[in-house]
């Protein structure tokens, strides 16, 4: 009884502090994004002013028009879409088939093969970028989609996650499929993929996001503006004449971030599931 009244008395200020903390956290996360959105609508004299002016006088799109006129955003968008869809798609395919092989097929060096896949997780892209750049250049793949996509195509992490998932599948379903005489290919696509849909969706979304945001490698293998992806092309708006035109640069930044933000808010449940997949330790 005594304890109860004590906790009840203590709860009030604690709750208040909780909400205060929540508001501060949200403000820190949202303010910079709001600043970017608002700057995209501001005229020069509204940006270069002290004290700062938060809201633009009018919401006109001249900065967006200027950004679209200065660099080929249409191409960036197309290139990002193509490399992301093909890259993430093939990566998922490779991950699924490799995981299937490791879990369901017989091979004398299976453990070694799986180890080879997993150890690749420990090799950062930057460590191998010079040899890969040399190889891609010698193949004549500079400024091509295959040059952007292929070197990062192999699936190590996806393979690992799918393997973990496959090991938890009810064996009875698979045995039924085997008795049906279904080939391994059919078993994978007719039986395993459908019941693994949530896991596959979560992994796919995270893979799409990282492909879309990929910067270093496309920066190295593309120097023609019409072949650039969004993150690489965006930097073309930076400092063209020594002074940054913030209004135009922020308009461009909005164009790059908004598709991802919309996708994130629409699919947040799945994306968050993908991010935490396996992150929760036993």
């Amino acid at each position, binding site marked *: 009884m005594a304890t109860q009244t004590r*906790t009840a008395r203590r709860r009030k200020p604690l709750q208040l502090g909780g909400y205060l903390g929540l508001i501060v956290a949200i403000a820190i996360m949202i303010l910079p994004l709001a600043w970017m959105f608002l700057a995209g609508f501001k005229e020069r004299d509204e940006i270069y002013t002290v004290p700062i002016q938060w809201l633009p006088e009018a919401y006109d799109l001249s900065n967006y028009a200027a950004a679209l006129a200065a660099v080929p955003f249409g191409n960036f968008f197309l290139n990002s879409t193509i490399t992301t869809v093909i890259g993430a798609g093939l990566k998922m395919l490779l991950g699924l088939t490799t995981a299937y092989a490791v*879990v369901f*097929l017989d091979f004398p060096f299976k453990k070694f093969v799986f180890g080879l896949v997993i150890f690749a997780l420990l090799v950062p*892209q930057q460590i191998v*970028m010079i040899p890969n750049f040399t190889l891609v250049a010698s193949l004549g793949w500079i400024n091509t989609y295959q040059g952007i996509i*292929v070197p990062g*195509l192999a699936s190590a992490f996806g393979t690992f996650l799918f393997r973990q998932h496959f090991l938890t599948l009810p064996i009875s379903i698979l045995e039924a499929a085997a008795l049906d005489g279904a080939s391994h290919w059919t078993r994978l696509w007719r039986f395993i993929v459908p019941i693994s849909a949530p896991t596959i969706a979560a992994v796919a979304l995270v893979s799409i996001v990282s492909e879309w945001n990929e910067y270093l490698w496309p920066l190295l293998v593309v120097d023609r503006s019409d072949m650039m992806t969004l993150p690489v092309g965006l930097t073309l708006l930076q400092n063209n004449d020594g002074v940054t035109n913030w209004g135009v640069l922020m308009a461009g*930044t909005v164009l790059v971030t908004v598709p991802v933000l919309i996708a*994130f808010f629409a699919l947040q449940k799945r994306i968050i599931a993908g991010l935490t997949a396996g992150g929760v330790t036993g």
Partner: protein
Amino acid sequence: MPTIVDLHRSTDSAVAVSVSTGVVSPVTPRTFTPRKKKKPWKSWLLFLLFAGPNVALLIVFTYKPLVQSLYYSTLQWNLGSASAIPVGLGNYVTWFNDPGTVRVVTVTLIFTIATVGGGMVIGLLFAVLLNRKLHGRGAARTIVVAPYVLSGVAVGLLWLFVFDPNFGITAALLDAIGLASPPWYNDPHWALVMVIIVYLWKNVGYVALIYLAALQSVPRDLLEAAALDGASPVRAFRNIVLPLLGPTTFFLSITTLLSSLQSFDIIQAMTKGGPLEGTTTMMYQIYQEGFQAGRAGYSSAVATILFAVLLVVTLIQMKYVEKRVHY
């Protein structure tokens, strides 16, 4: 089962895995031993068809270049040049004797410790906050994680405007309490602080997310029992919750360390390693030496050193995790 971490991309490394319980080893065998004994090579061939392409890609674009990089590090070789001079360990000797190396290593250490340590502390604070029964915490969780899925370049650029010493938000906030804005753009130390803040802003949501998932698995009755025993919430947190978060903390220490050491986008968008190389980390140096200065051999030597450090640190952490985390 060791902890496994994706190092390829900063966003990817989000989805990393640490498994210390028996998730991995199934009781029932999964491979279907054929009813009638078929020729084993048929099954091997299938295995190669299923796993071969992926393994081939890994060999061509990860393992072969890893060995090549080691070889390149013994050359005095400019990127794109047809000829190279073997110099043995010359590049390594040059790096260790270069007066700039102390600065690069210091910058790398400060950046790494601040982003990893700071990220874990702030991430845990956010997670504790989001774990409380407050209205709107679901929306708050989404908002806190949102920057994590954005392009590092875009994040770097938008923060560059936030930090504008004349027309940015920080200048206005500091002005409100009577302070002048620090020279974020022109002073090497302030520039380092700036990129650290931006890195934290972008990535802290991931740490919060993982901690939150771990907090939600802390048994409620344990905390209720502690409260009945008269333990204050702070004491209950320190003595019950924190130890239970141990495995998560170790897992995060590996993943965030590895993605922090690889950060490139934000530095490239905001400072390009400057001013006065004040934000040049080892990873950025590898890029700069290889692709700006064209000294591919030297760059490969730095890459090899960094990879060796990464490998040793990861192995030590994994050993430590294996020892500490089982219960």
